[in-house]
């Protein structure tokens, strides 16, 4: 196992006590467990507090637009299947602005890992409700409390037969690191819904709130029915761990043109271009 110091130490812009610090540690730990050197992976993120993580890990990085972390990450994997690609962003970024990309990414099933720092709030913009904010939660933009039903990403992912679905809590450091490591190790699209408290703007879903609720699941993650049952639970109890896992080939292994490694190294085959051209004669 690599020493996780290799991933650097950066001054962060996060609040002291923010769950993101723990997720960062867990990520570095997981990368180290996977023996990934900084040049062997790329971290891709969107915008939000969580998304700043790209700036706090020595490695390749692509810090893209709010909500748009998954599309570049998937394309990157397609054009260079040799690179480990890890996507990391917030609940607003991933389940709000980026909701459509999540659905598509699950369906595409590329071998990438998505870690969502789910603090059930928009942190960077100072406390608006996110898709995972609970009904009744009073926020600056919802003075009467949120009316909409919260989004359960784990349940939707299991329903869609995402190939790896896990839930974790940043406060359980070993759990968080192990879960991320398992997700990275898994071949196929893996989602880690990582609850990570925002101490500044979410006074409901606090560290203590999660801590008292999160309980490791016991079922076989290959069992879809059991997985679905656990996935639907979120509230007084929050099942954590690998909820669902399904082994199947990831898309970049199925596409013939992706089998020769990184595309940027491939020279233009002018004879084939010429042959294609002459098909119009």
């Amino acid at each position, binding site marked *: 196992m690599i020493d996780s110091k290799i991933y650097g130490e950066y001054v962060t*812009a996060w609040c002291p006590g923010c769950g993101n610090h723990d997720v960062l540690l867990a990520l570095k730990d997981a990368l180290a467990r996977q023996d990934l*050197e*900084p*040049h*062997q992976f*790329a971290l*891709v993120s969107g*915008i939000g507090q969580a998304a*700043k993580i*790209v*700036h706090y890990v*020595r*490695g*390749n*990085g*692509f*810090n*893209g*637009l709010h909500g*748009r972390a*998954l*599309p*570049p*990450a*998937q*394309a*990157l994997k*397609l*054009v*260079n299947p*040799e*690179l480990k690609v890890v996507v990391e962003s917030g609940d607003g970024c991933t389940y709000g602005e980026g909701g*459509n*990309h999540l*659905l*598509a990414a699950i369906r595409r099933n590329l071998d990438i890992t998505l870690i969502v720092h789910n603090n059930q709030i928009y942190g960077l913009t100072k406390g608006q409700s996110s898709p995972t904010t609970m009904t009744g939660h009073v926020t600056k933009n919802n003075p009467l409390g949120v009316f909409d039903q919260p989004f359960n990403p784990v349940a939707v992912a299991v329903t869609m037969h995402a190939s790896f679905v896990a839930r974790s809590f940043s406060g359980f450091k070993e759990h968080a690191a192990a879960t991320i490591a398992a997700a990275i190790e898994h071949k196929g699209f893996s989602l880690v819904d990582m609850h990570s408290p925002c101490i500044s703007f979410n006074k409901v879903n606090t560290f203590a709130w999660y801590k008292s609720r999160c309980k490791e699941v016991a079922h076989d993650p290959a069992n879809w029915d059991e997985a679905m049952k656990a996935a639907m639970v979120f509230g007084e109890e929050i099942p954590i761990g690998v909820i669902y896992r399904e082994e199947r080939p990831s898309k970049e292994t199925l*596409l*013939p*043109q*992706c089998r*020769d490694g*990184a*595309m*940027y*190294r*491939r*020279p*233009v*085959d*002018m004879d*084939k*271009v*010429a042959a*294609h*051209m*002459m098909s*119009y*004669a």
Partner: protein
Amino acid sequence: MREELHLILGGEAGQGLDTVAGLLGKAVVRSGRHLLTVQHVMSRVRGGHNNFRMRLASRPVQGPPDTFDLLAAMSRESVDLHRERLADGAVILVDGGWDMPPEPGLIGIPFAELASRPVFRNVALMGVLGAMLGIGADILRELVADNFRAKGDQIVSSNLDVLAAAMKWAADNAPSLPLPGEGDGVTRLAMDGNQALVLGALAAGVRFCGYYPMSPATSIAEGLAQVAVDLGVVVEQGEDEIAAANMALGASYGGARSIVPTSGGGFALMTEAVSLAGVMETPVVFVVAQRPGPATGLATRTEQADLELVLRAGHGEFHRAILAPATVEDCFHLTHKAFDLAEKFQGPVFILSDQYLASAVQSVEPFDLGALPPVAGPDLSDADPDAYRRYDWSAPVSPRRIPGHGRSLVLADCHEHDEKGHIIEAADIRVRMQDKRLAKLDVLRAEILPPVSTGEDDPDLLLVGWGSSGEVLREVAAVLQARGVRAASLCFTQVWPLAPETFLQRLHAAECVVAVEGNSTGQFARLLREATGFHIANSVLRYDGRALTAGYVLERLAPILEAL
């Protein structure tokens, strides 16, 4: 003998007229003649009324034709719709089974006899037309056979039978309308703008295409998809245009030359990603195949009204280049160039095409692939990886390394950032980084394509256009010259950035300048004024969804010419 022959094939969507026009066009080209086929289709799959307009000639052809020597009507509506476009003595081919009063030139094809089933009608029509044009039977047979090969021998042979019967009928019953000229024996290609664009991208080494279907750009992605495995391209349909554009940036970050074909409405959704390409300094080629807006507008028609959108898309300030092909050949060459430019200045390059050009089939000579200039690529060194800074500001364009290639770490960022790519908020770094990005304009300036001009330096009438209106302008100028008017044309195939030193004098030297554009407000004329101060007071605009033609322009020029 005539130098040109103009055909119009009209009928319902779903009747296979596109197949007839396509195969016939190929046959014409294989017969050594020049071709331009223009597509007018409705936004529907069956019914309605579509038509294909073919210009066949013994020398290279320019814009779309205005009048026709032959109308092949597969629906009755077609006769009435196109009658006014017919030249004197034109032939009108109709279904012999229709109850129509006889008239000179009207010929009924006995489809009921020639085509035992409706699906055979288009091959029957092809046979009739082929025979009338005097196209060799072997050429027609080969095309038909190739076309149906995938459906099995049985289908091929039935179609060949229909073809033969139709040709025989025509030889006996239809007038001869021989192809112009002799046929020069030169091998040419019959391809539309999108096909040429795909070829240009392939020749430039495109490796990724992110798209979401939208007419008239869809055939670019579909064309790439057909050769994707063979030529090594990942063609990924996005869940939406936002995904498509952001994917392309991710792929480009990964070192893959990337293209994003779309149309105005889809492109509108990519606006934020364009800005990302600007600040990330990531090469990417966007193709915006224009169609009439606003919003859904006329989905299958043509217009040149997204110039300003493409020029200003994206928040914040950064540079871009916009190439606007005038011909099918331009589609090839400018696409190839676009990839080179995008990499050289590390940012977004746009190809601004339109439905007319995207689907116009033209005869072109095979491109000399060996003679193409090299296409710039990323920095594939890995020297001193610890010192590597993605946004090294010692020069406007920083070395772009590729993640995973060697030990250099590549950080691409959407915020204002320092040389390493890390977020910053300091005023001085911001200014320096913005200045660095703005300085990249010099890289673009060094490669600006000057406008193409015809005619004298100090004409009485100077027609100014851009993109697909170019050929029409050249044709109009030639027609006017033939009439004794000192007319000239100036056509821009690069609309941004502009190099006034290459054209401003021509504008000033002309007695009267007229902007000709396929839009309703004269966007390019406005842009010229912004860039040079020169005000083009006269314009000929078209915004009914149809392509500019020489006839359309000449008609509207009449009052201006009179005042000259």
